[in-house]
């Protein structure tokens, strides 16, 4: 009898170990597939694009109906638009998140607003583009310009930033707020001095996603900021600019010679990836600096 129990126990243990390794195998495989896909895309872009990259490519404007020359105006345009989008989206997003988590009385109204913000995150970007065209370009008379494009992109990334900021604010221990308030420090000072500094690294992490999206979107800037071609660099925020995503779109679908500009297209894609990664890197460095003395 004892032997039977023992072997039963052994068998059930073996079965459990088997199930465990099966499950581990499955999750490991999923990770591998994703890593391979990502690596594959990057590899493909680099292999096809590296040939087009040269000093002239990143410092000169396009020539010969955009079949030769560089993409400097588009690089600059994308950097302007991304910085503009951050300048609008980050303060507005953080302020909204502070209101939603720290001040607003939690109830049905606030829950509705939060659902609305989440829905906004899922709205196709072309809708934001049309909104930007109707509101900023035409109604506010900003024209197709860096300002209109930055505002549109800023609104596009707003839900991402609000979401990230809300999570980061909630992650600050309640005991910090209590400790500060119990000293007779006002609520705003508590938020400004204690809550916000401790939440900022988390807010930046989430915002990196938004930054990548702002730099890479085509549809929202198509109607609001991007020029098909302009060798002239923008003189003010009311000027049109070229932008990398739109330039790629133009070269790949509507250019004068789609086939011969393939290398330029890949080169432009590679530059876009590099620009997004460098902006992310800056955010990561700032975050690291902030984290250094804000640990609990």
């Amino acid at each position: 009898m004892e032997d039977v129990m023992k072997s039963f126990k052994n068998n059930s243990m073996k079965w459990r170990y088997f199930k465990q390794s099966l499950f581990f195998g499955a999750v490991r495989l999923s990770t591998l597939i994703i890593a391979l896909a990502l690596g594959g895309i990057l590899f493909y872009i680099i292999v096809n694009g590296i040939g087009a990259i040269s000093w002239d490519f990143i410092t000169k404007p396009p020539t010969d109906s955009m079949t030769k020359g560089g993409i400097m105006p588009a690089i600059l345009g994308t950097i302007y638009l991304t910085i503009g989008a951050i300048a609008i989206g980050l303060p507005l997003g953080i302020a909204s998140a502070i209101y939603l988590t720290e001040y607003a009385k939690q109830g049905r109204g606030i829950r509705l607003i939060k659902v609305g913000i989440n829905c906004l995150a899922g709205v196709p970007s072309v809708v934001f583009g049309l909104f930007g065209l109707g509101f900023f370009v035409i109604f506010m008379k900003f024209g197709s310009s860096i300002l209109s494009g930055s505002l549109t992109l800023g609104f596009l990334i707003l839900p991402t930033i609000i979401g990230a900021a809300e999570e980061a604010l909630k992650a600050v221990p309640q005991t910090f707020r209590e400790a500060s308030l119990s000293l007779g420090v006002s609520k705003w000072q508590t938020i400004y001095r204690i809550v916000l500094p401790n939440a900022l690294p988390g807010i930046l992490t989430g915002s990196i996603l938004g930054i990548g999206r702002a730099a890479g979107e085509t549809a929202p800037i198509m109607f609001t900021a991007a020029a098909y071609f302009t060798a002239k660099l923008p003189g003010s925020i009311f000027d049109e600019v070229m932008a990398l995503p739109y330039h790629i779109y133009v070269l790949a679908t509507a250019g004068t010679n789609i086939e011969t500009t393939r290398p330029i297209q890949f080169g432009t894609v590679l530059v876009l990836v590099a620009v997004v990664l460098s902006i992310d890197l800056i955010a990561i460095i700032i975050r690291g600096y902030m984290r250094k003395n804000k640990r609990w």
Partner: protein
Amino acid sequence: MDSNNIIKLNKVNFYYGQSRALTDITMNFRKNKVSALIGPSGCGKSTLLRLLNRMNDLIDGTRVEGEILFEDKNIYAKNVDPVEIRRKVGMVFQKPNPFPKTIYNNISYGPKLTSMSTDDLDALVEQSLKQAVLWDEVKDILNKSAMNLSGGQQQRLCIARALAMKPDILLMDEPTSALDPISTAKIEELIEELKKNYTIIIVTHNMQQAARISDETAFFYLGNLVEYNKTEKIFTNPDVKQTEDYITGRFG
């Protein structure tokens, strides 16, 4: 006698939403004494403590009835700013909760932001840390993060932080429940010392602690004040049977 009562509660009821957490509490706290609040979990003693510096305001859906007078002024009157009350009524929490800042900045944080006289911040920091008997241990590492201190040191830092605001009253919510016996002994000694200058109201689960350090003890049960008397009397010859049962460990 009456002028010695720094806080007076008059028929105080307190509600979390629909449920009543405190029922008709009427009691006075005496100046420069240590008063202990004891009772089983959920009896309302912490709730009462947090009423005294309006920390319960932070919880949505709470309601206070009755009067709580601090130096004969109702702290729940419409024109009273809770921020003002909290400057005079400091608090130490159950778990040490220093800010993720340097030791120095933990202490100077409150005085700096509440525009107290900040001309000699260094002296204030030193004085507060000395009062909390922490100065000798940290005087060479004032610019190091407070998070590196031990639990007991952190709790004394929190006491020093509260003292830097020069409050009249110090509320302590189970200040030693997260600490080892040696740290606990240090904090108890400290309380003995502090009562010369401050009124201390302490919530504790530790009956021996209440007996050791307090002058007066209040026993709460299910949101009611069962008995409030001199600590000696409560622990040797309580008037109410329920108190005796709790103290001798028959329930709770």
